């Protein structure tokens, strides 16, 4: 592979990661507030379909993306209502919505199957795109990719550097303590769940109007992305920057699988395609295993240097969820 195709490939990785970035950032801020939005897989499909359908009908990419965000917000509103107001299991409601939205996407998307529609074009940024290496890598992207860069920075700044972001951390960690500090906990949970849902809703159109333009129904290959994004959220330790890193890592591995396929002919293609999933389990294992009792016992039995190394490694991998994740808040 020559240098130029490598650059194009890597630039493609950045673009391919954009929808996943939107999804994991949306999920991250929703979970930061204490609400698990398990509907993500269905939401991505539904918004991909509806984003495409709206853009096709109105011939406007803008309306397509907006439709995606609105529908994402709407689905998450159901999650919020059921879990915050009705205090039902977030997992149950999210799972049902994940399946229902998916089927709804297939049902409503039937007339749009395979029709050619509008799609995002690359938008090189003047001057910046001429910089060697960095230019083709970062600045010859589609608008959605630029927005994904911006979203990472903004989400990180919001959570860790702003006053409301500090409160957001508090709401997910210990709602009662946030409440005595003046937060309207349940209202803010609604807000963040819906905003997070809108971000997740951006992921769908980013696929159907960009990365994998068009709507292909069950063979769109989008079914499953949402579940991956959920695990990336955990891998990301509820930190927007680490979550984004996870998304890039995933996109990179997928690309690597494609690139290596012709090289590693003895490995069946199905194995490479599915490689991210065992990897996902493995990363989750690394994130969680440090808390297991038998691990601490095994560590205790290791020689000093090995123990130090493994302890350090596991601690770096470890990510603890917001303490009140999935727990409804009630005054007194």
């Amino acid at each position, binding site marked *: 592979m020559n240098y130029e195709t490598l650059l194009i490939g890597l630039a493609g990785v950045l673009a391919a990661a954009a929808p996943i970035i939107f999804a994991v950032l949306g999920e991250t801020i929703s979970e930061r507030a204490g609400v698990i939005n*398990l509907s993500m897989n269905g939401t991505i499909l539904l918004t991909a379909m509806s984003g495409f359908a709206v853009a096709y009908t109105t011939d406007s990419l803008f309306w397509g993306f907006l439709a995606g965000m609105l529908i994402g917000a709407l689905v998450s509103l*159901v999650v919020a*209502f*059921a879990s915050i*107001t*009705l*205090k*039902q299991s977030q*997992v*149950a*409601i999210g*799972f*049902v*919505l994940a*399946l*229902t939205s*998916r*089927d*709804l996407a*297939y*049902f*409503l*998307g*039937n*007339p749009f199957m395979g029709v050619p529609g509008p799609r995002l074009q690359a938008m090189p940024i003047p001057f910046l795109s001429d910089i060697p290496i960095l230019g083709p890598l970062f600045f010859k992207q589609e608008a959605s990719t630029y927005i994904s860069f911006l979203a990472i920075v903004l989400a990180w700044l919001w959570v860790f550097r702003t006053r409301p972001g500090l409160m957001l951390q508090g709401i997910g960690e210990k709602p009662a303590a946030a409440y005595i500090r003046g937060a309207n906990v349940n209202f803010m949970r609604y807000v963040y769940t819906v905003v997070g849902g809108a971000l997740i809703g951006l992921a769908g159109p980013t696929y159907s109007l960009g990365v994998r333009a068009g709507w292909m*129904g069950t063979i769109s290959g989008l079914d*499953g992305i949402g*579940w991956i994004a*959920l*695990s990336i959220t*955990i891998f990301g330790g509820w930190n927007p920057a680490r979550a984004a890193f996870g998304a890039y890592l995933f996109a990179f591995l997928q690309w690597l699988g494609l690139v290596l396929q012709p090289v590693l002919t003895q490995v*069946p293609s*199905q*194995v490479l*395609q*599915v490689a991210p*999933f*065992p990897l*996902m*389990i493995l990363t*989750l*294992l690394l994130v*969680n*295993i440090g*808390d*297991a009792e*038998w691990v601490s016992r095994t560590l205790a039995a290791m020689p000093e240097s090995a123990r130090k190394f493994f302890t350090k490694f596991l601690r770096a991998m470890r990510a603890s969820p917001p303490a009140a994740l999935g727990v409804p808040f009630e005054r007194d």
Partner: protein
Amino acid sequence: MLKSRLGGFVFQLIAFLLALGFVSLILLAVGASPFDAYKNMITGSVGSGRKFAEVLVSFVPLLLVTAGLLVTFSAGLWNIGVEGQIVLGAIGTTWVLRQFVESSVSPWLVISLAILGGMIVGAIWASFAGMLKTFGGVNEIFGGLGLNFVATALTLYLIFGPWKRDGVASMSGTEPFPEAFALPQLEGFRISPWALVIALVAVMIVYFILNGTYFGLKIIAVGKNIRAAYLLGIPTWQYSLYSFLICGALAGVAGALQVTAVYYRLIPAISSGYGYLGLMVAMLINYQAIWAVPVALFFAALNIGSIQLPIVMKLDSSLSGVLQGILVLFVLLTEGVRQKIVKKG
């Protein structure tokens, strides 16, 4: 009144009507007549004996999976990996059958061994999710999902690789097995009474385990409070694992029957989403085994009833999934509303 059984029933009826109304709106939105759609779904499912037999074909795996999930739900576990457990059951069965294709062993013995094989492989696959949960702290939802994708990939690999059809491999699956390896069917219908009996017996066993045995009581205790169950003397992680094994075994049987009673070969979509649908059924019946049979039958009827929609009305057959999902959604929501009213009153 709201607390009573009747009150609960009224709310479920409301949920059903709301769901029907909501789906009707969706149908109107795409320019289809809801009345025609429902009529087609009814005639498509119970319109003839042959069609009802199809419903039963779909009912068998759904009931088996639901029965298994009732056990994991009782243990407080969300066994989303059930989908993959069906797939692995089918793979296990296919493997066993392949060993005997050229042999002269009695087909009955072969089929029994094959179903047993599917059951064991399904249980082993379920134990992976269980062990990831117990020893690795990986939430069973994520472990299970990951394993589902791996299971699908494994199927594809087998169909296109080692088990590929003579000539050219294709999405149509492996080479069909000889007729002798099929569970006998009712004359003129696609349904095998044997499969039906297996599924019904399975749900009865599960009902009995959960309601009449100390084993079941312990599983329920683990599900309700794992710390206290441990202090009460129950070996908790073992019981979590047992529940995974039971569910995996039943899902494995479902996969085995898909091979021996429906497709007679391994196909890529062998699980047909019955695992996820089983989760919905279990949620809809609020984890009460007694309701598993009617609700699974109803969902199976929706599945079959929607098959002819694309031909007759140019509607996508995923309408059944929408209807099922919306129904569960509204039942969950109305249940939440009911609890809220009860608490206030």
